[in-house]
Each structure stands twice: as structure tokens, then as C-alpha cells.
């Protein structure tokens, strides 16, 4: 039976990866939100067919292919073209690009649920189309998109574990490398699982609060 000092050693080892997990999750979240919102605006408020088609194709391709495959294409595939990304860069770019496809859909659902009268009224009182989008539609759409976005954030934290497959030194990566040097596999993976749970529980609680709050607003 492993004693407490073994457990402490394992925990310390795993915590070395915590910063990379957090950095990858945060950076991917920012890319996902900004790019996703941009794509959503282009998709909803332009009338150019090619733009619509390109964005739709982007969203479908990124949402129907596993993150692991995208990461392998970015990390191993691009290297064969001479474009070598570091594993952390590949992880951030990969998860960020996938996130953009996810949040684009969430934002679009937010804009779609607004009544047409909002645009008409804003234009009628003399706001320019740009002002209408920025100050009238976006704040309302954000409010509707918020629960979906926070759900995505929870999912993202868990998905960072996948980037250990391209050797990005996050929690799961250290778990895997510790297993090869010690034989406490059960304890190591259970501790890693617990660590992720500690990261996602507060986020999940946040999702619930947001859902309750905005659910009530709707009703």
C-alpha cells in the first residue's frame, strides 16, 4: 500500500503540469472566443455566398473530426512541410481553432434567438448598422450565449488532457511519464483524475449558476 509521502510526490509531479494545462486552456479559450465571434458576425451579417460557404465548411470540418486528429495534423503533419510548431503552440492553435467552430455556433444561436424587431427598432431610431450590432444586438446575444459558452469552457479544460498525446507537458503528460518511472499506476491516474475534477468542479458550478440565472430571465 502506498504511503502518504508517495502520494505527495505524485501530487507534486502532477502539479508541475498544472501551469501548462491552465495556459493552454486559457489561450485556447481566448482564440476560440475571439475567432468564433468574428466568424459568427461574418456568417450572420454579411450576404456573401462564398463567405457563408467557407465558414460553414470550416465549422463542419472542425466539429466532426476528433481533436486528436487535428492535433496530429498540426504537430506531425505540418512538420513534414517544414513548419515545426512546438507542442504547446500546436495544442493552443489546435484547441483554439476547434473552439472557434464551437463558439461560432453558440454565438449564432444567440443572435438568431433575438426578435427581428430589435434590428428594426434600432435602425428606426437612427443607429447605423454597425452600432446596432455592437450596442443593441451583441449584449443581448451574449446573455443567451453565456451558459453555452461556459459549458464549452468546462469541456475545454477536460480536452486539454488530449494534448499530452503530442507531448505538451501538462498534467496528463506528467502522469504518463511518472508511470514509466514508478509503478504506482493506479494512484497516479486516480490523482490526475482528481486534479481535473478539482479544476472543473468550480467551472461546472459556475455553469449551473449561469443556467439558473439566465433560465429565469427567459421565463
Amino acid at each position: 500500500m502506498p504511503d502518504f509521502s508517495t502520494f505527495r510526490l505524485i501530487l507534486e509531479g502532477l502539479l508541475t503540469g498544472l501551469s501548462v494545462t491552465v495556459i493552454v486552456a486559457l489561450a485556447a479559450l481566448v482564440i476560440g472566443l475571439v475567432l468564433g465571434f468574428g466568424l459568427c458576425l461574418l456568417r450572420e451579417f454579411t450576404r456573401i455566398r462564398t463567405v457563408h460557404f467557407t465558414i460553414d465548411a470550416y465549422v463542419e470540418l472542425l466539429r466532426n473530426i476528433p481533436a486528436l486528429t487535428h492535433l496530429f495534423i498540426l504537430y506531425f503533419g505540418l512538420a513534414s512541410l517544414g513548419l515545426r510548431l512546438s507542442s504547446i503552440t500546436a495544442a493552443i492553435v489546435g484547441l483554439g481553432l476547434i473552439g472557434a467552430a464551437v463558439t461560432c455556433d453558440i454565438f449564432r444561436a444567440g443572435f438568431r434567438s433575438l426578435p427581428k424587431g430589435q434590428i428594426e427598432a434600432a435602425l428606426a431610431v437612427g443607429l447605423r448598422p454597425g452600432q446596432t450590432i455592437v450596442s443593441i444586438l451583441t449584449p443581448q446575444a451574449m446573455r443567451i450565449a453565456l451558459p453555452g459558452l461556459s459549458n464549452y469552457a468546462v469541456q475545454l479544460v477536460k480536452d486539454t488532457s488530449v494534448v499530452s498525446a503530442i507531448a505538451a507537458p501538462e498534467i496528463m503528460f506528467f502522469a504518463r511519464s511518472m508511470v514509466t518511472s514508478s509503478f504506482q499506476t493506479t494512484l497516479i491516474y486516480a490523482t490526475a483524475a482528481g486534479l481535473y475534477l478539482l479544476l472543473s468542479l468550480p467551472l461546472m458550478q459556475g455553469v449551473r449558476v449561469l443556467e439558473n440565472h439566465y433560465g429565469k430571465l427567459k421565463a
Partner: protein
Amino acid sequence: MTGFLQPYVEYGSEWWPLLAEAMLNTALLTIAGFALSVVFGLALLLCQTSSSKALRGFATVYVTTLRGVPLLAILFLLYFGLPGVGITFDALTAAVLGLSLCFAAQVSELFRAGLKAIPKGQREAAMAVGFTPVQSFTFIILPQVVRVILSPMIVTFVSLLKDSSLASLITVNELVLTGRAMATEYFLPLQIYVAVGLCYFMIGWPFSILSRRLAAPAAR
């Protein structure tokens, strides 16, 4: 661009049979995982709706835990971790079990939301015209629940399909692992991983379209 496509012309006839077999394995893994997660999900739902406090508590803890822990951690725990305490699975069993344990939590939440969406009057009316509780559930409630949750269920199915790729990391011979083996053999990782991605797309995209079609009338 022609340089990128050249290997497909050259090796396409060698690659396709390998990828087709791997696609079949991925499909089987996904279907087995999904079927089992529906079974586990229904069992969880029974726990959640039971009158026993212990069972309800278990279901809540289970759903929260399994939704908060990444699938990869569960897979590693099952495949590499449990042998440490004397429980050994082969890779495929561990993958199916891990996928279904994780997705059972999502499936049970879907069922619960579906049941909530059916007005109480439906059951009362069924009982009033003389249906037994079992009959009213089977013929009145269940068909309506299925109608409500069909589209999100298909979305869950596609997520499970994507997550089945993680089974490659515990040595299940599905699409990604086949791709890795091919990439080392042919030294063409870009072309091969793109092909692997398109294989997933070919399986998953029709389901994504289907789920959107089914969701559209319900939203109106």
C-alpha cells in the same frame, strides 16, 4: 497543391483498405460504447428517480464526477491503473467501458431533461382513460421523450465517435492508431492524418446533418 495530393494517387489503393478496416473498427467501438452508455444511462436515471436517498446520492456523485474528469484519465485508469489493484481488461474492453461510463452521465442527463419536458397531464390523462402505469409510460410518455431527445442523442453519438479516437492511446487498433502506424511506414504524416480526419468526417457528418434536421421542427 499537386505535391500534396500526389501521395494519394500513388498510395491510395494501398491506404484505402487499411483505412476502411480501421473505420469499421472505429464504427464498432462507437456503436458498442453508445449502446452500453444508453444502458448505463437508463440505470442511472432509475437511480436518480428512485425513492432511496442512497441511490439518488450515488447518481448525483457519479454524474458530477464523470462529467468533471476527462475521458483520457478514465481510460488510463481503467487500462493502466486497474491492473495495479489486480483488475485487468484488454484494451478494447477498457475502451468500450471507459467510453460508456463517461457518456452514461450525459445520456442520463438527456433522458432526465426529456422526461421533464413532457407535461404531467399526459400521464394523468393516460391513467384516467385506464392505462396502467407501465402502459402509460411505454405508449404515451416514452414516444414523446424519444421525439424530444433524439436530436441531442445523435449529437452525443457524434461526440462519442470523436472521443473514440482516444482509445488509440490505450492501443485499441482504430482509425488514429492505424494512421500512426501508416505515418511511420510511409513518412507522409500530413497526407495520412488528413485522410484519417476525412474518414471520421465521412462517418460523423451525416449524423450531424440528421440531428439538425430533427432539431429544426422541434424548435419551431
